[in-house]
């Protein structure tokens, strides 16, 4: 089991001189622990045969796991021992990437935007690619939104999906019952999500940080239960369908227009193709994501953004400087919630159908993983992590292990590279002009 090998990762500086005995002993202890861990859960499997519950065994797996832990620890010990002086724990692979990204941040950003803008016209692009890119951008938006809360303000929100859900459902409900168009209902969805953020945040934000984490976790569950059971409003497990699609300045994307409206392809004299709508949705999310990016980058350079970061660093010092921590946290929470709401509205309009299944804790965990892996507070890191996290399950053999890998990665990143893959904090204001440090 590769997972087992990951589990047994040690964290202790080894003696500088090579002590083979100690090394082997260390590895043997690791292997012994792995054996105890593996025997019950790996060695046996509970199966149901003809309604009868029994056990099957797979002791070879246990053997493989134990041996790989032994070898792994030994190798790790050797590797550590062989580079005693400059014990740089950050990944040798990631550091240059991070340095490159830092030095050429603007260039990389523009290249990325340019690539995203012409993605549709590239020769290898298929409908599937555009769909994937749309999904990535949705997660990028969510990641940037959560980044305000976790990365900048340092508030651990484990129920971010709640705001995503509030956005999606308030969009779906206002759009289907009041016949509002996407562009009209979008701000409403954002506002309602922000409101939900304030309602939740107001009582709990004055508490200690870890209580906030569990309360948000609970809130995510409450919203999920409400979606499932408040059938008259949310449609219960059946969800809400027939959610209107966005149009372009009143032009609709459909084979034939409803009375009184014009379709996109008629207006431009094109042939109808369903991919037009998909392409259009892609541009909508790209535009939304860019707006979110601009908005958050800008906020970071304003007093409010600096207060967020200051609060993350030291709440007590903030109070001594006359900053009201509750208000500052509330603003971060509300803005994060609003951005989640926008993403939710986009999700609803893209799918045309939403149900509680899309808004579970797994989703919250995924978004959090994007922020954490990307490097808390780093916009570019979020993009990178969102790409990894969406594309990883595309490799069929990895799809099953997706959450397992996310979980393990969150632990390992905290241990080895707590700043995330791309960790670099750019100052929000410089005294000595634009000299790059």
């Amino acid at each position, binding site marked *: 089991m590769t*997972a087992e090998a990951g*589990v*047994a*990762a040690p*964290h202790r500086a080894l003696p500088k001189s090579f002590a083979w005995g100690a090394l082997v002993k260390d590895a043997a202890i690791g292997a012994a*622990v792995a054996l*105890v*861990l593996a025997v*019950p*859960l790996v060695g*046996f*499997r*509970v*199966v*149901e045969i003809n309604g009868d*519950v*029994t*056990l099957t065994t797979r002791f070879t797996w246990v053997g493989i796991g134990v041996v790989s832990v032994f070898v792994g620890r030994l190798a790790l010990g050797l590797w550590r021992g062989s580079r005693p002086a400059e014990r740089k724990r950050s990944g040798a692979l990631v550091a240059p990437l991070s340095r490159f990204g830092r030095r050429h941040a603007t260039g990389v950003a523009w290249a990325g935007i340019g690539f995203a803008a012409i993605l549709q016209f590239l020769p290898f692009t298929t409908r599937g690619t555009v769909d994937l890119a749309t999904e990535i951008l949705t997660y990028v938006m969510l990641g940037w939104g959560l980044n305000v809360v*976790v990365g900048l303000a*340092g508030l*651990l929100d*484990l129920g971010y999906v709640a705001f995503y859900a509030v956005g999606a459902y308030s969009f779906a409900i206002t759009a289907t019952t009041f016949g509002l168009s996407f562009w009209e209902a979008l701000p409403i969805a954002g506002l309602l999500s922000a409101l939900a953020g304030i309602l939740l945040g107001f*009582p*709990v934000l004055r*508490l*200690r*940080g*870890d*209580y906030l*984490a*569990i*309360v948000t*976790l*609970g809130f995510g*569950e*409450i919203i999920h*239960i*409400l979606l*499932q*059971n408040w059938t008259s409003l949310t449609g219960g497990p059946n969800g809400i369908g027939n959610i209107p699609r966005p149009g372009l300045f009143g032009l609709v994307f459909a084979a034939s227009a409803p009375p009184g409206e014009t379709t996109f392809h008629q207006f431009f004299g094109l042939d109808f193709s369903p991919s037009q709508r998909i392409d259009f949705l892609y541009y909508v999310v790209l535009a939304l994501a860019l707006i979110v990016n601009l908005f958050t980058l800008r906020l970071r350079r304003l007093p409010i953004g600096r207060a967020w970061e200051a609060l993350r660093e030291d709440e*007590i010092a903030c109070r001594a400087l006359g900053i009201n921590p509750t208000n500052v946290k509330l603003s971060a929470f509300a803005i994060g919630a609003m951005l989640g709401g926008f993403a939710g509205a986009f999700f609803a309009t893209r799918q045309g159908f939403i149900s509680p299944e899309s808004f579970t*804790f797994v989703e919250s*965990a995924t978004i*959090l*993983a994007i922020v*954490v892996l990307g490097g*808390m507070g780093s916009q570019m890191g979020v993009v990178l992590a969102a790409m990894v996290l969406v594309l990883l399950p595309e490799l069929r053999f990895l799809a*099953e*292990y997706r*959450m*397992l890998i*996310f*979980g*393990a*990665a*969150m*632990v390992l990143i*905290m*241990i080895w590279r*707590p700043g995330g893959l791309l960790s670099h904090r750019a100052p929000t204001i410089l005294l000595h002009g634009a000299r790059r440090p």
Partner: protein
Amino acid sequence: MNYLLQQLVNGVSLGAIYGLIAIGYTMVYGIIGMINFAHGEIYMIGAFVSLIAFLALGVAGVTYVPLALLLVLVIAMIFTAVYGWAVERIAYRPLRSSFRLAPLISAIGMSIFLQNYVQLLQGARVKALQPVVEGGITLATGDFPVRVSFLQIFILAITFVLMAGFSYVIAATPLGRAQRAVEQDATMAALLGVDVDRTISLTFVIGAVLAAVAGMMVLLYYGVIDFYIGFEAGIKAFTAAVLGGIGSLAGAMLGGLLIGLIEALWSGYASVEYKDVMVFVVLILVLIFRPSGLFGRPEVEKV
């Protein structure tokens, strides 16, 4: 009346289980000041190890029920304890001096990992176990009889014994003293010769042992488990710990009982669908109006 009595009996049994899990949260929070999000998963692993142990004993031909119960209890405690130990060693110890959010994020990562680890290894489907302990006492007859099953008695008895045992450990042994010393000031305790690492490890082990017992009981009580049970039970048990006053063992137990009762009564009289919502509402209300819980000391932050 009888209906109420029955709900109370059920609520107390459930509450005992929550209380056992809550002790793990409260002890870890007391000693290193963090929510061990993976604790619910440890409890889930305890339930799985118990199930596997029951089945293995069945295969081995152990049919005398008290012996089987005892063996399963011991097996579950041992294996789960190693999981508890490993979680601390791998995911928390390296982060003790890291920034504030790091251990929390690592904990949530660990929780996700363990959940999926069990799901992948044992499958996502609900696992069922045939009833092991059957029968009970009828307390009241009538059109609505009130029954206390032997299982419920077993649960309460074990919980009581464990509570008494661990209260003694905390109050009167060197380990308990070391624990309280580390709780107060880890640096100072280390200077005075307390092995901080070992004390913290043991705290996790004790928490895991109690969670294993809770896991075994929930397996016996409901007869079905799946890889997801740790999530909800974890939040409920944490709520119990907060309700009782974080850091207080008696508080955790009492909080567990209250949460069990709230859940049983709410499902009995109001709506089953919203019973979990109720627990969260309790959590939020407690945090707003009495963040130090029933037995906790109000926290004065050191500036």
